[in-house]
C-alpha cells in the first residue's frame, strides 16, 4: 500500500516537475521569440519611417516637374499644353516592364569561344 502510493506520488511529482520545466522552457522560448519579433518590428518601423521620408523627398513637386520635362516631354502643367488627355481609367496603359538585358554568365576557367576559333 505504502510503496504503491509512494511510488505513484513520486512519479506524479516527477511528472509535475517535468511539466513545469517544459512550461517554463516554452514560455522562455516564446518570450525570446516575442522579443525578436518586437525588435524586428521596431527596426522595420524605423526603416519604414526613413524610407517614407525619402519617398516624400524624392516626390518633391519641383523634382517631379523637372523629371517630367526631361523624360516625358511635358513642358508645363497647363492643360492646354498636355500632349494627351486621359478621359477614363481604361485608357491608362498597363505598366511597362523595364527591359533588363540578360547578362551572359562569365566563366573564367574555359577560354572564350571566339579566341578558340581564331586559333583554328
Amino acid at each position: 500500500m505504502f510503496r504503491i502510493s509512494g511510488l505513484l506520488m513520486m512519479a506524479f511529482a516527477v511528472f509535475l516537475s517535468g511539466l513545469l520545466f517544459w512550461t517554463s522552457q516554452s514560455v522562455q522560448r516564446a518570450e525570446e521569440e516575442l522579443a525578436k519579433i518586437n525588435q524586428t518590428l521596431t527596426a522595420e518601423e524605423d526603416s519604414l519611417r526613413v524610407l517614407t521620408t525619402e519617398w516624400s523627398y524624392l516626390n518633391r513637386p519641383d523634382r517631379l516637374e523637372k523629371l517630367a520635362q526631361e523624360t516625358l516631354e511635358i513642358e508645363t502643367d497647363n492643360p492646354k499644353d498636355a500632349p494627351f488627355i486621359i478621359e477614363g481609367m481604361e485608357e491608362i496603359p498597363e505598366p511597362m516592364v523595364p527591359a533588363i538585358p540578360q547578362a551572359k554568365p562569365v566563366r573564367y576557367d574555359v577560354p572564350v569561344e571566339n579566341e578558340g576559333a581564331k586559333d583554328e
Partner: protein
Amino acid sequence: MSKLSRRRFHLVGQKGGALEQARGRLVLVSAFFVFCYIIVVARAADVSIIQGALEQSGDGSAVYSTSPKQEEKISRADIIDRNGVVLARSLKTASLFVDPALIREPKKVASDLTKIFPDMSYGDTLQKLQSKKRFVWLKRNITPDEHAKILYLGYPGLNFEEEERRIYPQGALAVHMVGASGVDGQGLSGIERSFDELLAKGGEPLKLSLDVRLQHVLRREISHVMKDHKAKGGAGIIMDIENGEVMASVSLPDFDPHNYGRAKDKQKFNRVSQGVYELGSSFKLFSTAALIDKEKAGMNDKFDVREPIKYGRFKIRDYHAEKRIMTLPEVFIYSSNIGSAMMGQRVGNKGLQDFYRDIGLLSAPEFELAEVGKPIVPSPWGDINTMTAAFGHGIAVSPLQLTRAASSIVNGGVLVQPTLVINPNSIQDKKRKSAVRVVEAETSHRMRQLLRLTVTKGTGGKADVEGYLVGGKTGTAEKPSAGGYSRKKLISSFLGFFPMDEPRYAVFVMVDEPQGTKESYGYATGGWVGAPTVGKVVSSMASILGIPPNSDNKQFEASLVRYLKTKEQIKKERAVATH
C-alpha cells in the same frame, strides 16, 4: 508493517523519542541537500544540453533586447499635408562622441575620421581626441552610411548616442506655415511653434490643409514673377472659400528649415499672415459690396469722376483718369479711386467702419500661427479715412485678412474662418460654414459678376484662363515712405476667384516693389504683375485638382455689359460736353 505501527513501536521512552527526533532532522537536512543537488543537476542539464540543442536548431542569433516599450523614446509627431505627404518628421540619427582616454593612436584615428567626414579639419579633430575630458562630441546627426563606416574602423573610444533630428523633406516649400525647430526638437516658428506641446507628445500626425502640389505651383509662379520684375518680395495664398482651409501659402524670400539659425530676419518674416500692407484697389471690392448691400445701390448708379476730390490738403485722383460720368460697374472694373471714394461717402463713416469690422478687416484674425500681424487702422476715423479706406489707402491689412474678407463676400455672403489644420469633421460635412452672414446672397452674386467683368472687360484681363471663368480685382498701392507715398515703390497684387459661376477657390498674389519690364511696357501694376501670375496658378491648379474646363457659362456677367459705355458712346458724350 505500516508506517504508523512502526512509529508507535518506537515511541517508547524518552530516549527513544530524542533519537527519533535527531534522525528525523538528519533526514530533513539530507533531503534538502539532495533537493539542491537535483536542482543544480537539472539546471546544468538545461543549460548545457537542452539550451544548446535549441540554440543549434534555431537560427542562432542572440536576442538581447527586452521589451522594446521600455527603451523607446516618444518621437515628436509628424506634420503631413492634406494628402498625407510628409512635411516634417523626426528621425533617429546617431551622434558621434569620443572618450579620449581610450584613444591610443590619436593621429591615425583623426586621419581616418577626416577621410569619412571631409568637412572636419584634421587639426581640430586631433585636438579633440587628446582632450582631458571623458566626453567630447565629434559630430552630431551622422548618416547611417557614415555610422557603418566608423563601426567598421573599430576604434575603441568612438561611441554613438542616438538622437532625434527633425527632417523637412519638402525643404523651403512651405516653411512659413510648417515652421522650423531647434536642435532639441522645440518648435521655433510656424505650426512647429504654435503646436509645440501637442507635437512633443507624439502620436498621430498633425494634418494640415496645405497641398504641396498647389504650394509648389504658387511658389514657382511667384518666384518667376519676382525674378522677371526684380521684386523685393512676394506673397500668395490659395484658400477654399467654402471652409476657409488654406491650401497653399507662400512668402518669399524664404529659407531652409534645417538651417533656421542662419536665416535672415527678412527670410523668416511671414508676409502672408504677419505682414500688413496697404493693398490698394482690392478694397474697392469691399466698398462696392457695402454700397450694394447697405445702400441698395443699382448697377446704373452714376459717379461723376471728372474732377479729383479735394479734401483739406488731400487730393484724390485716378491713376488713369477717364474724366467722365461712370456707372457703378465702370467705377469697379476701371478701378476709379474718385468713384470709390464717393461710394465710401455714400455708405458713411459708421457704415463703412461697421462693414469692415464685420468682415474682419479691423482686428487681427484668429489663425493657427503665432505669426499674425495686427492691421493698421486709422484712429480716429474721419471723413477722409472713409474716402481713402474705400479704395484701400490709409488702412493696412495682411494678405490673409484680405483673402478671408473677400472670400466671405464671394462665397455667398457668409463669414469664413481661415484655418491651416484640417478639421476631421469637415470631411463628412464639406459645406460647414459659420452662421455669420456678412452680405446678402444677391449682393454676393452681383460681386461675382463684377469680379468676372473686371477680368473680361477691365483691369484684370491677364488673369483669364479659358474655360475656368476667373474673376478678380487688381490692386496697386504706393508704399508709404518718409513724408508721404513713394511713386516708384509699389505693392502690386491680384485677388482672383474661380470658377466664377460657382466660386470655390480664392487665389491671391502680391508682389513687393516690382519693376516695370519691356514686356509689361514699363508697368508694374496689379494688372501687369499680379493678374497674369494668378492666371498661371489657376491653370496649373485646374489640372492638378482635376477641374474640367467649363465653356457653357461664358455669359455669366453678360447682364452687366449694358452698363458699360462703348468707345463710340464715350466719344459722342465728350463731343457733346465740349460743344
